[in-house]
């Protein structure tokens, strides 16, 4: 659905993107990760045809954004980072109006259903200007979905949402991607979102793709799993460990354990199992996840030269 090869993009003579590669296939939920100013939003604008690029190749839904921007955008739902709305409108009118720009006239029922989905059903008839930031984020997701796109591009979709709101947005994205034909490009710095939703990731830093591939494969290469720090009452029996758990080290009374795959019942099942094997656990601390380690090891390598893209 999206194929970007060695994309370079200068803005006012300065090369902001210096070699972006991104490959998103139908059914993929792709997490585009990178620090602020890495070039994530500029990449999105380039693939929507809103930025003229210097060199490289971009193909979005089989078309070239330089020539077919309007046709490409007709099949793409976008949630930009800044969710701007006309404050005097009410949400159903706004969604109907915005859907019209896609040559798609949503019915009253479509709009009501969408607002229910994003949890704004009860607030539908208040002017948008009275909405909180989180409510505007939800409406922005509804706006991206209202045209029934083939490809969904979301820039920081869960920013400003409470945990319940985040979970609801996650569920919506999972539902959208569940038919296996649509694609989702998720631009975020929240690794938890990526961990829960994405099957592929790309890490970009300072305008370059540092890493791209299947999340599962990359995590497996990295060592996988999650690391915990445990304080114990007494020295444990390290020879009798449950499957998928390995001792990663010991430091100042703390034991580090690497859990390759979380058990189906969640981490608490694992602690019960360890307790049963005579691990007298007094305290548990979660360490950085493998995804976080992966991210940290591929970003910030040439930070002094990194710059904020002007958007």
């Amino acid at each position, binding site marked *: 659905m999206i194929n970007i090869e060695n994309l370079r993009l200068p803005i006012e003579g300065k090369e902001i993107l210096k070699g972006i590669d991104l490959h998103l296939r139908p059914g993929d939920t792709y997490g585009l990760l990178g620090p602020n100013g890495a070039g994530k939003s500029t990449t999105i604008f380039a693939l929507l045809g809103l*930025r003229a*690029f210097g060199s490289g190749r971009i193909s979005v839904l*089989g078309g070239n954004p330089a020539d077919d921007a*309007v046709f490409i955008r007709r099949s*793409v739902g*976008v949630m930009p980072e800044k*969710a701007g709305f006309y404050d005097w409108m009410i949400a159903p009118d706004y969604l109907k109006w915005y859907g019209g*720009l*896609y*040559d798609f006239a949503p019915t009253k029922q479509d709009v009501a259903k969408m607002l229910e989905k994003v949890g704004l059903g009860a607030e539908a008839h208040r002017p948008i200007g009275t909405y909180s930031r989180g409510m505007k984020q939800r409406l922005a997701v509804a706006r991206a979905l209202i045209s029934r796109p083939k490809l969904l591009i979301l820039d920081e979709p869960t920013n400003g949402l409470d945990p319940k709101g985040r979970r609801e947005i996650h569920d919506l994205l999972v539902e959208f991607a569940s038919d296996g034909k649509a694609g989702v490009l998720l631009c975020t710095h929240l690794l938890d979102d990526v961990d829960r939703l994405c099957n592929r990731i790309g890490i970009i830093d300072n305008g370059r793709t540092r890493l791209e591939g299947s999340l599962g494969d990359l995590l497996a290469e990295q060592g996988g799993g999650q690391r915990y720090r445990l304080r114990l009452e007494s020295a444990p029996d390290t020879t009798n460990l449950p499957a998928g758990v390995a001792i990663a080290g010991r430091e100042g009374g703390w034991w580090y354990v690497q859990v390759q795959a979380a058990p189906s019942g969640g981490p608490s099942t694992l602690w019960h199992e360890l307790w049963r094997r005579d691990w007298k656990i007094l305290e548990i601390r979660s360490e950085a996840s493998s995804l976080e380690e992966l991210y940290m090891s591929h970003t910030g390598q040439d930070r002094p030269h990194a710059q904020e893209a002007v958007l």
Partner: protein
Amino acid sequence: MNTIWIIARKESAQMLRSQRGMLWLLAFSGLLSAFSLLLVSTTELSLLDNAQVVYMMAGTVLAAGALLAVILGSDTYAGEKERATLVPLLCAPVAPDALLAGKAVGMLAAWGVMFAVATPYLWAVGASGQNLGAALFYLALFGTPVVLGFGYLAMALSARTGSFFGIPAQYGHIADAGRKSAGHRTRSARHCRRTHLGRDQPVCRSAQHLR
């Protein structure tokens, strides 16, 4: 054409339903009320003949229309950018020219609203003479191009200054449309076209497969 109409519909609704639009209409009505009152209550001004009074009033309406066009035009891109409503609009499948045309039609609709508000005032000061019909005709005839001209100029400037200050370089297409509409094809626009066409980008196979 449909997109132009959709954008124009929003622009004209904004005039009638948003707080800013209502404030503008209120200020315009206040101005016309004060001017009408001045014309009928001041002894010296009441000595003016009917044609002078009606055309003076029509001139005021025209000046207010030009002012509205400049305000709306300058708000077109710079204001939308400030309120973060421009990016969602640009992410939708709207061609830059259609966006510009929609905004212009919306501006004409706003001018129509102003014309409707001004008509009773013109009638109040000029109904006793024979000049009301002609004044309304000339106001529509000359007012419409004046509003469009000022509005287009303000829109082009709004788009251009926006891109000049580097903030919305992704709006370069719009700035180009603005420049085109103002009758200019600048070096930057030509450069942009060269950038699109001169590199080794794959040629689009067809637009049909995207539908």
